[in-house]
């Protein structure tokens, strides 16, 4: 059974529940520290990382500016090699294409390799409703599927699970001793999943990159399950966001250096599968049919402005999640969205309804650690500020997505007082009087009451600096 997301409108409630879960926090802390450290180690071994970042971003910027051209080129070249290219404007369109394909071939069992894009469109649920069983074959994803949850992290979906929890989940699924060694637990999963691979006639995957020049796509992984998913079943379908496009095979070089180092701290993933066409064309191995579903689902709106366009440069490495002080505390489920963490806080509101996701751009201290680690230099704090303004203030041609009248009045009053030093001095004097006579009451009312949760109230100085200045000059 596929899991459900928490309501993203309730970020604070979700976050506070996550803060109360000490087991999860301990697992999350050690996992984010471990992956951050592995990334630092990988960078220390690599020379020229900064050059790679600039090069990769330049390739992404170029491709996104000419995206229509490269998408058409991809379709032409993929079609020439026997791949069927489908276009999906929405997630529902993409899911319908997969279901129709399965129905056409009379397939009711599919194996899946890890794909955030299929999570984004809720493919597993759609398949379940259509009577098609889809088994996740990435170990972490399978654990999440067995637990009836959603991924906690975009690269390592089950990092919030302790070893004991994983043992119990696999015991229920395979009968393995819950206290067995990690090797035995993994072996039991392998045995169970091998049977699924052998039985399935449909393999479903995503892709890390699509290559316009050859109509190929590349999948990076460490377990070999993606290679099995894309080669063993008769039919393979890949769901690929349109932003995954790269002009040429040569462009992969820099991304193959950046992505594993940023994501898991590996110099290279164990498997890199560059898939081009069907068995009948150049390859002796592979599926009889290969389908690629090119998915928009809100992406083309992000092309409008340079500030939002950079969101599409993301290569889903997850480094920003590991580096984020908010993600480190609350983890992935609290965001209530497929994509959590800093990158999730900027792409979810753009892929979905901004009003619905309006809390996410505020789930950040704006510390900028995400921008520091991003392998393609996405200015996530800039995007967060842009989206915050879209949520609260709106734009001359667009109303605010989730206006808050009281808060807007507070900021109008703030701006009115701060525009003129006389008003500012008067307001601060009134604040001192209020503090003297009603201080205790004020500290029981928001916003001070909220500050005072775990902190003492900041007190106004007896005399402001501007008064002291008279004696200093």
């Amino acid at each position, binding site marked *: 059974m596929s899991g459900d997301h928490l309501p993203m409108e309730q970020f*604070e409630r979700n976050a506070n529940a996550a803060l109360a879960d000490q087991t999860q926090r301990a697992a999350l802390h050690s996992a984010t520290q471990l992956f951050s450290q592995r990334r630092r180690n990988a960078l220390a071994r690599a020379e020229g990382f900064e050059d790679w970042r600039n090069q990769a971003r330049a390739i992404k910027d170029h491709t996104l500016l000419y995206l229509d051209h490269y998408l058409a080129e991809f379709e032409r070249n993929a079609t020439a090699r026997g791949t069927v290219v489908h276009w999906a404007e929405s997630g529902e369109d993409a899911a319908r294409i997969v279901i129709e394909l399965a129905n056409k071939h009379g397939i009711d069992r599919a194996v899946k390799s890890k794909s955030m894009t299929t999570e984004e469109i809720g493919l597993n649920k759609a398949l379940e409703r259509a009577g098609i069983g889809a088994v996740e074959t990435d170990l972490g994803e399978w654990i999440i599927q067995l637990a009836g949850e959603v991924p906690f992290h975009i690269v390592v979906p089950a990092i919030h699970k302790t070893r004991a929890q994983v043992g119990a989940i696999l015991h229920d699924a395979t009968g393995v001793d819950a206290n067995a060694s990690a090797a035995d637990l993994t072996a039991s999963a392998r045995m169970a999943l091998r049977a699924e691979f052998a039985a399935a006639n449909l393999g479903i995957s995503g892709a890390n990159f699509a290559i316009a020049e050859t109509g190929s796509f590349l999948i990076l992984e460490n377990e070999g399950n993606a290679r099995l998913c894309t080669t063993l079943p008769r039919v393979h379908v890949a769901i690929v966001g349109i932003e995954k496009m790269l002009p040429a095979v040569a462009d992969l070089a820099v991304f193959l250096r950046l992505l594993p180092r940023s994501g898991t701290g590996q110099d290279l993933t164990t498997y890199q599968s560059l898939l081009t066409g069907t068995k009948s064309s150049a390859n002796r191995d592979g599926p009889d049919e290969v389908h690629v579903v090119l998915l928009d689902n809100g992406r083309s709106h992000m092309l409008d402005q340079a500030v939002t366009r950079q969101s599409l440069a993301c290569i889903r490495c997850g480094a920003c999640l590991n580096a984020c002080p908010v993600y480190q505390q609350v983890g992935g489920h609290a965001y209530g969205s497929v994509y959590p963490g800093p990158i999730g806080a900027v792409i979810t509101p753009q892929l979905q309804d901004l009003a619905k996701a309006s809390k996410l751009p505020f789930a950040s201290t704006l510390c900028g650690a995400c921008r520091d680690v991003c392998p393609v230099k996405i200015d996530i704090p800039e995007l967060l*500020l842009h989206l*915050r303004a879209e949520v609260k*203030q709106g734009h001359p041609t667009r109303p605010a997505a989730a206006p808050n009248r009281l808060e807007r009045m507070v900021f109008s009053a703030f701006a009115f007082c701060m525009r003129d030093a006389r008003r500012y001095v008067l307001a601060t004097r009134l604040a001192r009087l209020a503090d003297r006579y009603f201080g205790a009451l004020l500290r029981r009312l928001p916003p001070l009451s909220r500050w005072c949760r775990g902190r003492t109230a900041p007190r106004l100085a007896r005399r402001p*600096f501007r008064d*002291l200045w008279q004696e*200093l000059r």
Partner: protein
Amino acid sequence: MKIALYVTCLVDQLWPEVGTATVRLLRHAGCEVQFDLSQTCCGQPACNSGYPDHAIALAQNVITSFERSGAEALVLPSGSCTAQIRHYPQLFLHDEAWRQRALALSMRTFELGWFLVHRCKLDSVPGSFRGTVGWHDSCHGLRDLGNKHEGPSLLRLVPGLELRELDNAEDCCGFGGTFAVKLPDLSVAIADRKLEGIVRAGVDAVIGSDVSCLMHLRTRLLHQRSKIRALHLAEVLAGGMS
């Protein structure tokens, strides 16, 4: 060198000792210090809360005040507000005349520590300190302005002070402006992670260059009845503290 001091609203209202210490330090470094009483707030709360239009008039106030001063540089005891002023040109993308004036100011705006090290070449400080301290890299100073070694190198000039490296010096303190009241429990949890590193280092005080972070850590430490103090760089360098 004639400089204009922008103390920031937080220093003005909550922590004026930092302003006094800043004046003392800049004078020690040979600067002639001006303070324009027309200053209020740089507008950062509005920008960070989704109301950048409300920051425009505030930015114009800072720009005209600096232009009137005839000073060579605007100096702030805050990396965060310095970064805000350095971003002012983005507020005037549709007003070229104001954008140019914002640009002229942004290039002359400096965080105190950076200014003392790179412009004043400060090699002695009036202050002294008894105890061990750790340096906290405030996020905007570190990541928006690229300040990393200025604070610690200045602290090494203070007689009696022992500087220890925090293993999480670059971690956020959890303040985040209105974040601290919008998501208070999360904000405190992030502060506690920061404070764990400070406790691990076994220091008497944590020192930084942003009153906002320090106020956050200080009020958390007070709530925990901890003996560890949160102090501003200027106070420690200028001395006169107990």
